[in-house]
């Protein structure tokens, strides 16, 4: 096999060379470079020499501990409660900023839960990174079914022989061609809290019963708003891929199904869907990888706010590497992101493999 590749395929290799060398130069070399940088203290701007620091950057990002807080008690030993009856606990900063516990220095509360009278507090050395990690996973979790499913639905709709169907194809595909920055700016107006289009439409539809929501300014709705807008933006791209898949299915299969008296659902379930198998694997993996790279929407619409509810890994990579001049910190996040995406793609490839 290998001898055949090297011997009789000289023209093929020659044609592949420009592509391969670009991939090598802009994907593979930077990755190894990033991996090396993540083990140093490289800054963007600095007269100080770069030093090797081992795994310090990884420890700074990933360290997590659990604290157990005892309730505060008064002299009689009774648990102190505030006006609402909630148990009063000592502040986390009394531990993380105390000289008695140097191991917790610089850590901050990520989240907490209650265990009897006690409170268990998870503290992390980089809460923003942790929130970015959770947000990115949430984003991917929602965007994959929304975008993949929505795109399939659109593809089925436009895969009909109707007059003017090309107009619909164009309209659905349009957001893909427009720059994501422009789209993000437009959606910022749509989501605007006071005079936004979305609020106006919802108010009109409910005859004024709807109270306007500050979609991007509230921690409850910000990430959801960005997910919805992102799903809409890229749905057209995957629609075209699904459409290509649909058009490879032989019409004779549909004719046979019609003769057998199959219902619409049965046709989809037993003819269309099995025919789309390979397309589905492609769409799934592509959307997953793209969704982990979400950046432009965040940068234009929320800057990671409010209260870190829309922080994502790539946004943090850029923010640290370029904004805060910490190239090694940014490189560390991108290495972690790479390993994550690699792992998830490998699992997906395994689960969707051909089984005979």
């Amino acid at each position, binding site marked *: 096999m290998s001898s055949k590749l090297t011997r009789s395929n000289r023209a093929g290799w020659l044609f592949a060379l420009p592509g391969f060398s670009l991939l090598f130069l802009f994907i593979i070399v930077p990755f190894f470079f990033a991996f090396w940088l993540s083990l140093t203290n490289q800054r963007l701007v600095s*007269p100080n020499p770069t030093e090797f620091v081992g795994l310090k950057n990884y420890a700074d990002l990933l360290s997590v501990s659990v604290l157990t807080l005892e309730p505060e008690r008064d002299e009689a030993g009774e648990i102190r409660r505030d006006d609402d009856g909630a148990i009063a606990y000592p502040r986390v900063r009394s531990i993380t900023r105390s000289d008695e516990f140097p191991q917790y220095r610089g850590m901050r509360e990520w989240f907490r839960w209650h265990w009897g009278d006690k409170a268990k507090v998870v503290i992390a050395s980089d809460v923003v990174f942790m929130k970015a990690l959770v947000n990115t996973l949430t984003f991917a979790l929602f965007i994959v079914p929304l975008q993949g499913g929505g795109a399939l639905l659109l593809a089925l709709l436009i895969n009909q022989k109707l007059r003017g169907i090309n107009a619909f194809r164009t309209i659905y595909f349009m957001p893909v061609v427009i720059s994501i920055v422009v789209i993000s700016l437009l959606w910022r107006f749509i989501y605007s809290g006071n005079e936004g289009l979305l609020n106006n439409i919802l108010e009109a539809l409910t005859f004024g019963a709807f109270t306007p929501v500050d979609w991007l300014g509230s921690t409850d709705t910000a990430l959801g708003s960005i997910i919805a807008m992102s799903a809409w933006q890229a749905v057209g791209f995957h629609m075209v891929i699904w459409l290509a898949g649909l058009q490879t299915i032989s019409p004779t299969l549909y004719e046979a199904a019609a003769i057998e008296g199959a219902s619409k659902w049965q046709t989809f379930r037993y003819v269309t869907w099995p025919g789309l198998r390979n397309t589905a694997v492609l769409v799934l993996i592509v959307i997953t990888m793209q969704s982990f790279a979400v950046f432009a929407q965040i940068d234009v619409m929320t800057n990671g706010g409010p209260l870190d509810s829309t922080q994502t890994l790539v946004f943090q990579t850029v923010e640290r590497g370029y904004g805060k001049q910490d190239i090694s910190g940014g490189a560390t996040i991108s290495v972690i992101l790479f390993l994550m995406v690699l792992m998830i793609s490998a699992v997906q490839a395994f689960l969707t493999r051909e089984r005979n």
Partner: protein
Amino acid sequence: MQRTKLTLGALVASTALAGMASAQTELTLWYHGAGNEVESNILGGIIEDFNGAQEDWQVTVESFPQESYNDSVVASALAGNLPCILDVDGPVMPNWAWAGYLQPLPISQEAIDGHLDATIGRWDGEIYSVGLWDAAVALYARQSTLDELGLRTPSLEEPWTKEEFMGALEAAKASGNYDFALDLGTAWTGEWYPYAFSPFLQSFGGDIVDRDGYQTAEGALNGEAAMEFGAWWQSLFAEGYAPGTSQDPADRDSGFIEGKYAFSWNGNWAAANTLASVENADDVVFLPAPDFGNGSTIGAASWQFGVSSACEHPEGAAAFVEHALQDEYLAAFSDGIGLIPATKEAAQMTESYAEGGPLAVFFDLSAEQALVRPVSPGYVVAAKVFEKALSDIANGADVADTLDAAVDEIDDDIEANQGYGH
């Protein structure tokens, strides 16, 4: 071989000829104002005058859009391609000087006599950059609003106290005439936050970093004064005095003009447009920052000229900067794009900043209350941390925890940079 020699000879001869034709040495200047025609024309005029006025130097300009200017400089510094004369934002200058992008500017003392202090960029005891102008921030208001709400008109000598300021906001809110009492400009992300809001913190008695040695933010950004500042900052949003971080940028630009806001915290660069757009320009007043206990201060230092470390002729660069510092040019920039001229004499030559002019108050603000942002290479990072802390607090984050986290991040950064050479 013969031919090579011949070509080489021709090359040398032609170079010598070209050199003789213009004995001037070329100096490249990078500027941040691409896209602004008025600004480019004024700068172009200065350069033309300079090139014609002497025989040693020939300055050529390359303009960049402001948003990508700093990135371009950093990228070209990493690639070893810096021009001779650089335009640099005041608070960023120490970072570039420390990184070795800039060298001291050999400018004569008389060229900068009488200039506003904040227009001179000093680092490590030497002058690195000099600006032709400064910028100032004031509280935009209408005299009719003050009269209607029964408020005292504050002056430079006697600004509002914290109680008076909060009373004014409460009165404006209670009147029901406005969407919000105060427009802070939270829609403007980036440098606006530390530039416009850190003076409030300083007025409370805190700061972004401890300016004594610049080695830590502990105590400055999370001490008692800073906690008090944080609680006050949060109350502005929690009690509905000011729109939060999701403020519509369009409202920021026109909200005060349209009467949506009673007061607006805005810079002198927006003043000319405001005066031109409001119904009654005489009614608009520019009030000094409130005094929260430690005096009123506003941010200072705008774009300035410096010499890059790659420049072989710093004396040529200094000659150009000295030429550009003439009052007539300062006045031209001021009239053209609304900036505060760096000297009193130049201010008198302008339409807006001359005594009795509509914006004269901004010159006094700059002269009296300006406090430069922390003069440290670490400022660029600390500014980002400060911005995030303020937007988090505005959105309801716990004040003490947020300020602590900001202090930790700034301290970690200072440590990672081995103290930033202080």
